[in-house]
C-alpha cells in the first residue's frame, strides 16, 4: 500500500538536461521535462523544434548525447533502449507508423507482447486488440485478421493506437501520442481524445503532440512548449490561451503574413490539368505556367499519388520530382553528392553520346554554391551529408534539370529554417521565370508561399482555396468537411 502511495507521489518520468545533435544540427539543447502519473502533458512547437526527437529519446529509439532519464524512481540513463522501454511501461505511437504490413493485426500485437505465447496465443492476441479497438473506437469496422498493409492509413493509425494501450504482463505507465490524429477524421479523433482522458483518470500518463492547438488546450492538463530544442514554456493548460501558446512557440509562423511576397493571380497558359484517379467524386486540378500551387489536407490523403500521377502523365522530361521521403524516393546511396545532383540533367551534359566529366563537375560546384550544400567536396558520398543537406541536393537535382514542372512531395522535412527561407525565395524566383510548381506540404505555414491550394481528403480534391483564403482554419475546415 505504501509502495503504491509513494509511486503516485513520484513523477512517472523525469528528463534532465537531455541533449542530442545530428551532425551540425542541435536537435535538443538541454531539455528538462517532468511527467506526473495520471496526467496528460501536451507538447507543442514548430516543426523541427525537437518534439519528435525528444519522444524518440523517451521511447529509447534514440540515445541522447547527454542527460538523465528517470522512470519512476529508477535512473535508466545508462542501459535504456527501445527493447526495454516497454518493460518500463513506456509505449509510443509515432508519426511514422510501425505496424508490419505483411502481418495481421493480431500478429502485430504479438510483436510487442512477448507474454502472448503457447497454444492459443493468436486467439488471445485477437481478443486483446479487438477489445481495445472496440473500447477506443466503437464502430471502427476493422477486422483484426486483416493484414496491416491492406488497411488504409487512418485504420492503421487506429490499430497502432489501440495496440499501444493493450496490456499483458508489462505495466502501462506512459503512452506517447505523436500527432495521433493526423490521419484520423474528426469523429475518431474525438473518440481517441475522450478515451485518452479516461485512461489518464485511471492513472496512466500520456504525452500528446499535436499541431491542433485546440485539442491540446482542451484535453491536456499541462502544456510544454518547445522551441529550438528547448522547453521554453511550461504551465497548466488553463493558464494558456491559443494566443499565448502561439506566442510562446515563437513568431516564425505568425509574422510571415506581410513579409511574404504578395500572392499573384496567374492567368498564363495551362501547363497541367489532372483529376485524381483515386476518387470518384473529386475536383479537378489545374496549374498554369509560372504558378505555385499547393496540395494540402491531412497527411496521406492522396497528395503524393496526385504528384506521381502528374509525373507519369507529363511529357517526357518536362516534370521533375523532389522527394520528401528521401530514402525510398530520392537519394542514390552509393553515389557522390555530385552524381546525385547531376543525375536528372545528364542528357544535357553530354558531348555526343558521352557525358563530359568537366560539365558534371561544373554543375555540381555551381549548385553547391547556389543552394549552400555543406560539404568540403561534392565527390564525397551523399550519405556524409545531414538529412537537410541531402534534401538540398535533391532540390538542386530538380531545379538543375530542364523540367518546366517541379513536383514537390513535402520536401522540407529535416531542412532547417534558414535554408527553408532561401529555398522559398528560390522557388519564387524560378516561378517568376516561368516554371510551375506543385507543392504538397503538411505545414500550413508553407501554403503562404503558394498562389493557390487544393485540399485533399480521401484521395479526392474537396476544395480549392485562393491565396488570400489560405488560413489554418480554412484549410483544416476543408480537410475535415464531411463531403465536398
Amino acid at each position, binding site marked *: 500500500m505504501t509502495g503504491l502511495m509513494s509511486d503516485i507521489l513520484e513523477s512517472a518520468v523525469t528528463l534532465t538536461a537531455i541533449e542530442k545533435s545530428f551532425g551540425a544540427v542541435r536537435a535538443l539543447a538541454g531539455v528538462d521535462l517532468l511527467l506526473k502519473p495520471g496526467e496528460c502533458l501536451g507538447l507543442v512547437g514548430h516543426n523541427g523544434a525537437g518534439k519528435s526527437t525528444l519522444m524518440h529519446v523517451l521511447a529509447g529509439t534514440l540515445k541522447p548525447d547527454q542527460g538523465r532519464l528517470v522512470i519512476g524512481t529508477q535512473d535508466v540513463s545508462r542501459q535504456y533502449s527501445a527493447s526495454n522501454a516497454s518493460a518500463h511501461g513506456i509505449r509510443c505511437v509515432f508519426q511514422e507508423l510501425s505496424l508490419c504490413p505483411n502481418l495481421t493485426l493480431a500478429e502485430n500485437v504479438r510483436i510487442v507482447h512477448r507474454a502472448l505465447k503457447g497454444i492459443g496465443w493468436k486467439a488471445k492476441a485477437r481478443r486483446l486488440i479487438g477489445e481495445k479497438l472496440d473500447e477506443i473506437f466503437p464502430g471502427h469496422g476493422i477486422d483484426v485478421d486483416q493484414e496491416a498493409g491492406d488497411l488504409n492509413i487512418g485504420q492503421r493509425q487506429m490499430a497502432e493506437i489501440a495496440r499501444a494501450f493493450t496490456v499483458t504482463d508489462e505495466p502501462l505507465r506512459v503512452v506517447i501520442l505523436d500527432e495521433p490524429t493526423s490521419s484520423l477524421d474528426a469523429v475518431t479523433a474525438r473518440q481517441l481524445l475522450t478515451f485518452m482522458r479516461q485512461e489518464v483518470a485511471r492513472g496512466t500518463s500520456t504525452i500528446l503532440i499535436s499541431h491542433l492547438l485546440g485539442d491540446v488546450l482542451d484535453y491536456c492538463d499541462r502544456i510544454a512548449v518547445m522551441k529550438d530544442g528547448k522547453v521554453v514554456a511550461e504551465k497548466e493548460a488553463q493558464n494558456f490561451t491559443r494566443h499565448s501558446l502561439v506566442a510562446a512557440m515563437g513568431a516564425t509562423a505568425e509574422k510571415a503574413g506581410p513579409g511574404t511576397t504578395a500572392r499573384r493571380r496567374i492567368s498564363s497558359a495551362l501547363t497541367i490539368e489532372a483529376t485524381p484517379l483515386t476518387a470518384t467524386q473529386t475536383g479537378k486540378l489545374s496549374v498554369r505556367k509560372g504558378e505555385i500551387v499547393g496540395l494540402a489536407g491531412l497527411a496521406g490523403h492522396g497528395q503524393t499519388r496526385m504528384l506521381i500521377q502528374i509525373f507519369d502523365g507529363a511529357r517526357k522530361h518536362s516534370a521533375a520530382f523532389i522527394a520528401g521521403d528521401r530514402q525510398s*524516393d530520392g537519394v542514390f546511396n552509393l553515389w557522390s553528392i555530385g552524381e546525385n545532383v547531376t543525375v536528372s540533367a545528364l542528357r544535357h551534359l553530354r558531348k555526343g553520346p558521352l557525358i563530359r566529366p568537366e560539365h558534371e563537375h561544373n554543375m555540381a560546384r555551381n549548385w553547391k554554391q547556389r543552394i549552400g550544400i555543406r560539404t568540403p567536396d561534392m565527390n564525397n558520398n551523399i550519405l556524409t551529408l545531414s538529412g537537410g543537406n541531402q534534401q538540398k541536393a535533391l532540390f538542386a537535382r530538380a531545379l538543375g534539370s530542364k523540367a518546366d514542372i517541379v513536383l514537390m512531395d513535402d520536401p522540407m522535412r529535416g531542412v532547417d529554417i534558414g535554408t527553408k527561407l532561401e529555398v522559398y525565395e528560390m522557388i519564387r524566383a524560378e516561378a517568376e521565370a516561368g516554371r510551375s510548381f506543385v507543392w504538397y506540404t503538411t505545414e500550413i505555414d508553407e501554403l503562404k508561399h503558394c498562389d493557390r491550394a487544393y485540399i485533399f481528403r480521401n484521395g479526392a480534391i474537396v476544395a480549392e482555396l485562393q491565396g488570400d483564403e489560405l488560413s489554418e482554419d480554412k484549410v483544416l475546415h476543408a480537410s475535415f468537411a464531411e463531403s465536398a
Partner: protein
Amino acid sequence: MTNIWTKLRAQPWIWSFIAMIAVWLATIAFTGGQGAGEILTAALSFATFTIIIGLGQMMVITTGPGNVDLSIPATITLAGVVATKVMDTDNARLLIGILAALGASFVVGLFNYGLIRLLRIPPIIATLSSSFLILSTAISYGRGIRIKPPPMLADFATTRILGVPLLAIFVLALSIGIALLIKRTLYGRTVLAIGQNPRAARLAGLNVDLTRFATYLLSALLAGVTGIVLSGFSGGAALNMGEGFLLASIAVVVIGGTSVAGGRANVPGIWGAALFIYLLDTMLNTFGASAGIRLIMTGVIIIAVITIAGGDRQQR
C-alpha cells in the same frame, strides 16, 4: 608506397588480381618455373569467353536484386549452333552467320524481358525457363551434328600475336567499351541508378524500363558473341558447349567486386576473377589433385576470396 597500397586496397577488383597472381605463383613454384608463360597464354585464351559473358551478367546483376540471366549457357549453345550451321564451313558466309547468330540472341533477350516485364515473372525463373526453350531450339535446329567453323573464324579465335591471343585483345577492347558505357553514358548511369533504387531512378526522370530491356538484350548478345567465337575456338558448336558457364558467369561477377545487391559494377574485376578461376583449375591439375579434391578446393578458395574481399568492403 603505403599510400598507393591504401588506394589499391580500396578498389574492389584488387582481390581478384591478388588471388590470380597468388595462384599463378603457386603453380609455377610447383613446376619450378616451367611453363609460366604458356600457362598465362592459355589462361588468357580460355578466360576470354568467361569475361565476355561475365560482362553481360555484370550489367544484369547491377540493375538490382533479383536480376540475373540464367539463360546464358543456352544462348551460347544456340548462337554457336546457328552460326556454324549458317556459315556451313564457308568463309564467304561468315558475316551472314554472325548476323544470324546475333539475331537469334537478340530474340532471346527480347523473349527474356518479355517474360519479366509483360508476364511479371521473376528474372531468375524467367531466364531459367526460357533457357530450356532455347536449348530445345538449338537441339532441333542443330540435330546434334558438329559442323566445323569456317577457317577464318577458327583462325580469329586461335591466332596469337606475340603469345597474346588475338581474342584477348578483342575482349580487352570490348571491356573498355563496356567500362565507358557504364561510367560515361546515360544508359550506364541509369543501370547504376536502378540498381540502387529503382523508384528513385524513375522519379529522377530516368527511363527504367527501356534500360532494363537494353540490359537483358546486351547480356543475350554478349552470350551470342561468346557462342560464335567459342565454336570457332573449339572446332565447332556442340550442344554442351555452354556447360559450366552459368556458375562461371555469376562467380566472376561476384569475385570481381561487383555488388550483388546492385548499383555497383566493376569491369577490371571480371578479368581478374576469370583469370583466377582458370588458373585455380590449372594449379589444382598441376598439383595432381583428384577430381573430387579439385572441386572441393575450388569451392573453398572461391568462398575464401569472396570473404576476404567482401569483409574488407564492409569495414569501410
